[in-house]
């Protein structure tokens, strides 16, 4: 086989198989954590977007503040008076324990909300407002082994399962939907809602959809100071749950990547030390400092790339495991965005190059004579 520069770098990496394999495991864990966590948070965001798109929501009207998220339900009457708005549906979202092991998203909707259009009722019927009735996503119903007519306990209140539904969004298929007034009681939010999901009227002739939407947003902010109208796509990416999921995912991933980087740095430092005499030979043969540095950086990058590939498999497997666990199935989607894979690979190579920089610099600045004398 013809010897290439890349092939030479990879041979050097693979010479110490056990050490390389252990380093790959370390990098794999780091990149795996990145792929699983960031992949989870991105698929979580994607699920929100799907939910809005499927229901035909154009805008979400929410509090301007990040932590105080409740809106007076009376704002619904004001919204109904804004000319661009066709319908404003109040909704509540919360997370509740349905068994000691399983937490799930619980939505409060009006029985006549347009959002039901996105759901396919597989068994039973829609609930009625003011009744202790619940609808279960099919994934959750399967996990809990519930069917229409069964009872379910939520925060000490008993609800009758009146419908099982299917949804295109992972956030709904593993969730519970209750009448909004019952949800307000359960969440101690009497007279309050989390948001209004808004459908706009068609834009009149001569007005673009974007202009129409902007007019609606401006009208909401003018008529309801303290509230803001957010396009559905934006709401999908900046609602509190998604923002926190992103932050937690990136924070944890960066720590894992730092550990992986230290693993590569240690391996490369050991490798350079062990091969000091060889580096001297390369320099004696006319290899410049830059060429030696490039070789070591390429070895580190190869280690990063191989670890990245390992990590992607681990992360993908982890997501699939999480998606089957009843505790997490309702909020985990296995649909991993391609961008996460590309980011993971890029991150792995970058971590490799950064971690290899100091060993590469040390290797390159070795004097040929000193390196050849090294024992």
């Amino acid at each position, binding site marked *: 086989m013809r010897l290439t520069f890349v092939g*030479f770098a990879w041979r*050097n990496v693979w010479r110490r198989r056990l050490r390389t394999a252990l380093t790959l495991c370390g990098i794999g864990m780091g990149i795996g954590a990145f792929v699983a966590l960031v992949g989870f948070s991105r698929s979580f965001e994607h699920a929100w977007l799907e939910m809005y798109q499927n229901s035909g929501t154009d805008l979400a009207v929410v509090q301007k503040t990040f932590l105080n998220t409740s809106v007076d339900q009376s704002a619904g009457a004001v919204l109904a008076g804004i000319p661009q708005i066709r319908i404003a549906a109040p909704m509540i979202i919360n997370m509740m324990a349905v068994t000691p092991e399983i937490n799930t998203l619980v939505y409060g909707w009006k029985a006549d909300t347009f959002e039901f259009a996105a759901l396919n009722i597989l068994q039973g019927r829609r609930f009625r407002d003011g009744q202790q009735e619940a609808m279960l996503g099919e994934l959750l119903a399967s996990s809990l082994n519930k069917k229409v007519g069964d009872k379910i306990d939520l925060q000490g209140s008993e609800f009758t399962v009146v419908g099982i539904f299917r949804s295109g969004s992972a956030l709904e298929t593993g969730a519970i939907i209750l009448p909004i007034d019952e949800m307000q009681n359960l969440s101690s939010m009497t007279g309050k809602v989390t948001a209004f999901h808004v459908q706009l009227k068609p834009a009149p002739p001569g007005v673009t959809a974007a202009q129409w939407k902007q007019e609606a947003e401006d009208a909401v902010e003018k008529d309801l100071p303290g509230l803001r109208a957010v396009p559905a796509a934006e709401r999908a990416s900046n609602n509190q749950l998604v923002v926190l999921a992103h932050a937690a995912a990136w924070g944890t991933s960066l720590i894992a990547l730092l550990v992986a980087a230290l693993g590569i740095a240690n391996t490369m430092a050991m490798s350079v030390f062990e091969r000091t*005499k060889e580096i001297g030979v390369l320099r*004696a*043969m*006319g290899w410049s400092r830059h*060429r030696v540095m490039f070789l070591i950086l390429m070895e580190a990058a190869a280690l990063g790339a191989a670890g990245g590939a390992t990590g992607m498999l681990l992360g993908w497997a982890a997501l699939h495991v999480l998606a089957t666990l009843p505790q997490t199935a309702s909020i985990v989607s296995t649909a991993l965005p391609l961008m996460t894979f590309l980011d993971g690979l890029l991150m792995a190579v970058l971590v490799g190059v950064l971690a290899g920089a100091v060993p590469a610099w040390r290797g390159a600045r070795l004097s040929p004579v000193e390196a050849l004398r090294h024992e």
Partner: protein
Amino acid sequence: MSSPSAVATSPWILEVRDVKKSYENGTIEALRGVSLGIAAGDFLAITGASGSGKSTLLHLLGGLDTPTEGTVLFRGQRIGKSSGSGNGGVASIDLDTYRASSAGFIFQSFHLLPSLNALENVQVPMLGTGSHPRDREDRARALLVELGLEPRLHQYPTQLSAGERQRVAIARALVNEPKVLLADEPTGNLDSVNSAKILEILAQIQARHGTTLIMVTHDLSIAATAHRHVAMRDGRICN
């Protein structure tokens, strides 16, 4: 100091002028004022006891190191300063360029890379130079065949005898067609049969290609086969 025009007429391919080399802030003086001229195509043996400075002189001649004082010239160009002619009128060549294009090294311990087979080891000096992989392989193969290693092309260093390893190392030193071949005790780890064979190969290369051969050895019988013999003692030439 010679001007570039004077240098062009220099009879020496390599020249050292009053070279001193010291280590550890001057406390160890390896070379104490050495001057020497080596003609193109010459075969020079450098002998001396351990610590006499012969290997240090070889390292300076091969561009592995730079002198503390004095100059080393290759074809009239000063070795070891930045390229150009800003060195008191003497053109210069940087160490990496000199080693890559004009010098080839042979070591006592061969220093082959254990993860590469014979054919690949010979290609290493050419890696990263922009040459085509096929050309690199062809060149390495031709040299190994010339040195009688055709059946051993794909053997790894641990699968080769000491004599074969040194022949691979010679092929590696020759692969960039150096003008100067520097050998540091090339037979030091070989038995008498293999030593004789390696010396014969080196002599053939020197005679056939006109390569300048500089060999460090402690064996006076080997030194006797050279065209010239320089003996060193305490960092100085003593003959």
